[in-house]
């Protein structure tokens, strides 16, 4: 089945969604599919009251997390926003721990105290989903500062939404990151809407990547976020720059969310037409890669079905695990407010 891709006037990068190294393609495909099916299950869990509060799904944007995080080293750092389930999974937090966190259970990656918006994991240097727009961008710069302070060669990847480019914290952080040459990738996931406000109605700039122009030595790059290979290729260079030259980059990854801003928001409506959603869904990053692989003969339909089954089983296992995990005991209420140690 051929990919019915239309040229997208909003995206500069027109790289073909072609298959590359079969093993890598399979890995990327699996990574994205796990996020997709996992989040569909989260949507179901939310509908049945298993997941509460604000819950922001990542569906449609999987190529961004997979394209970037999959090439990081274990000692690198990742920090993101409240739309953090996909990044947490790609970074290596187990589906069980992420699902249990969503269920608010003791086996969640934040012991049930964070929830959908606050996934954390010390083992994978996953520094959290953060709930205040823009707030975590200076924190990412601080991680870069610590890397440089110690003379390390790690990088810190900071995911953010398109609305962040208009907030003060973003500019303060980018200024200091450029000024002090901090090894940070600032990744704008431009899904075209900050909640219900389009980028055009919020930012006085055409290309968000041009925000980098204000900061000496900072590269601004536009990337097709529906193509995992494009994301991968473009960020490879930025990661290398950060690692070897300790230089920050601003990456604008153009993507699209297929769901509403959060579980309680409409998928489409006054702020974006249904047709636009339909159009973007034809560029689905997962099915595009799948189809390209099938055409290239590196993936059979049977293999795809097997992958779907394996992922479904993993997701179901995460659900069962989360559902069986106990709620945090009342004693946990007063734990983790302060540590009682000094150094």
């Amino acid at each position, binding site marked *: 089945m051929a990919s019915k891709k239309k040229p997208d006037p909003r995206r500069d990068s027109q790289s073909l969604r072609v298959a590359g190294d079969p093993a890598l393609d399979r890995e990327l495909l699996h990574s994205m599919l796990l996020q997709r099916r996992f989040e569909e299950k989260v949507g*179901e869990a*939310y*509908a*049945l*009251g298993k997941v*509460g*509060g*604000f*819950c922001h799904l990542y569906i449609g944007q999987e190529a961004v997390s997979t394209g970037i995080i999959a090439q990081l080293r274990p000692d690198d750092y990742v920090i993101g926003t409240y739309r953090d389930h996909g990044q947490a999974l790609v970074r290596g937090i187990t589906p069980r721990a992420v699902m249990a966190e969503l269920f608010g259970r003791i086996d969640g990656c934040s012991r049930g105290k964070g929830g959908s918006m606050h996934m954390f994991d010390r083992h994978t240097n996953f520094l959290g989903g953060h709930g205040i727009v823009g707030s975590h961008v200076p924190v990412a710069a601080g991680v870069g500062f610590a890397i440089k302070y110690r003379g390390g060669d790690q990088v810190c990847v900071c995911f953010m939404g398109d609305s962040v480019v208009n907030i003060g914290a973003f500019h303060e952080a980018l200024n200091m990151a450029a000024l002090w040459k901090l090894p940070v990738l600032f990744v704008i996931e431009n899904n075209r809407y900050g909640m219900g406000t389009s980028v055009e109605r919020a930012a006085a700039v055409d290309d968000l990547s041009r925000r980098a122009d204000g900061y000496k030595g900072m590269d601004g790059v536009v990337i097709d976020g529906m193509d995992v290979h494009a994301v991968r290729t473009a960020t490879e260079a930025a990661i290398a720059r950060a690692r070897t030259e300790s230089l920050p980059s601003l990456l604008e990854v153009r993507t699209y969310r297929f769901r509403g801003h959060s*579980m*309680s*928001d*409409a*998928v489409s409506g006054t702020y974006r037409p249904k047709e636009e959603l339909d159009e973007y869904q034809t560029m689905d990053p997962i099915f595009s890669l799948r189809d390209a692989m099938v055409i290239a003969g590196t993936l059979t339909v049977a293999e795809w079905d097997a992958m779907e089954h394996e992922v479904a089983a993993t997701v179901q296992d995460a659900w069962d695990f989360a559902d069986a995990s106990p709620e945090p005991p009342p004693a946990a209420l007063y734990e983790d407010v302060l540590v009682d140690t000094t150094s």
Partner: protein
Amino acid sequence: MATKVFMEALSPTMEEGRLVKWNVAEGTAVKSGDVLAEVETDKAVMELVARGDGVLRKQFVAEGATVPVSSVVGVIAAADEDIGAIVSLAVGVAATAPAAAASSSAVTASATSATNTASAPASAQVTAPVAAPAVAPVVAGSTGPTRSSPLARRLAREGGVNLGAIAGSGPGGRVIKRDIEAAMSGAGAAAPSATTASRAAAVGDFVDEPLTQIRKTIAKRLAESIGPIPTFFLTAEFDMSRVVEMRTQAAALGDDFKVSVNDIVLKAVATALAKHPEVNAHWLGDKIRFFNRVHLGMAVATDDGLIVPVIFDADRKGLRELSRESRELAAKARERKLTPNEYTGSTFSVSNLGMMQIDQFTAIINPPECGILAIGALEDTPVVLDGAVTVRKRMRVTMSCDHRVIDGAVGARFLQELRRMLENPLMLVF
């Protein structure tokens, strides 16, 4: 496999949803992700999407109906699949849902009315008596409840001091620590208020009357006494025939010699006290002060209540002088004209309810004194005298003794002395 279509929680706060419109008719093929219906949540109109592939076999909820989250609103299944079990289950749910809603609102309603009916009589009960005193004339000079600092209350409780009897020196009359300390050291008795309390006419079942200062002082003193003072009582019956004879004979001598039986009793008590300083004493906490002088307190009933003016050096005064002074003090007490130095400083007290036909009673010690004598009425009593029954004037006295100072025998010896004097009143002249 069939997929149930649930009313989903499409917002974090959504508890029920109204199915606005079915976008897919029964019998239509649907794929996962297709919009089945529009649902109005508490926030917005949202889309309910299919979570499985197949045919929308059944719609269980009509357009416009509202059902709780997690209700089954439809079923997606293969065209030929048996969905009988789901149908019967879903129909049951759909049928009970409105009923449940109705019964829950009924519960709310009855709870509300229960609250109303329960509160109505309760408030009536509470407000009526409160309102009653408000109709009664307000006593001039009345005050509200005693204001006091928490510390003062605690000290009063620990020290057995009646807070209400103390005039506070803090702002707005607040009783504070120093007032309690003063009261406990005995110097803090508040001066009687000059306000004139008139007893309110009885309207209704009862009348609340604010405490006068004197009533507060009485309460304080007496409570202080009965609490911490280990008191015991000695009762004796005296033959008063000779006293009565002596009084009659004296009165016959003219007005200058007219005294009451009570005056003679006072004189006898004073004289006996002079001989028994061991009962003429003050308990001062860390010491006992025995007096060589006799300052005799005499309880006087007034319209406000009890007050105890003092006849100073009563043992040194002749009957005539003593009688005159006791009359004057009693009169002043009734007119509320006593000055503090006229009712403080007594070393022992006498309370006489004989004129009220009380045969015998126990009086409460007026601290820091250690004893008080309660005098009963004179009565014609048949007694055996020299082997024959004869009628004599008899009087019962009861002495209350602070055991910390006065032991039983000590008190008894004093009463023996008093008996000797009253039964031989000639002794009082010497």
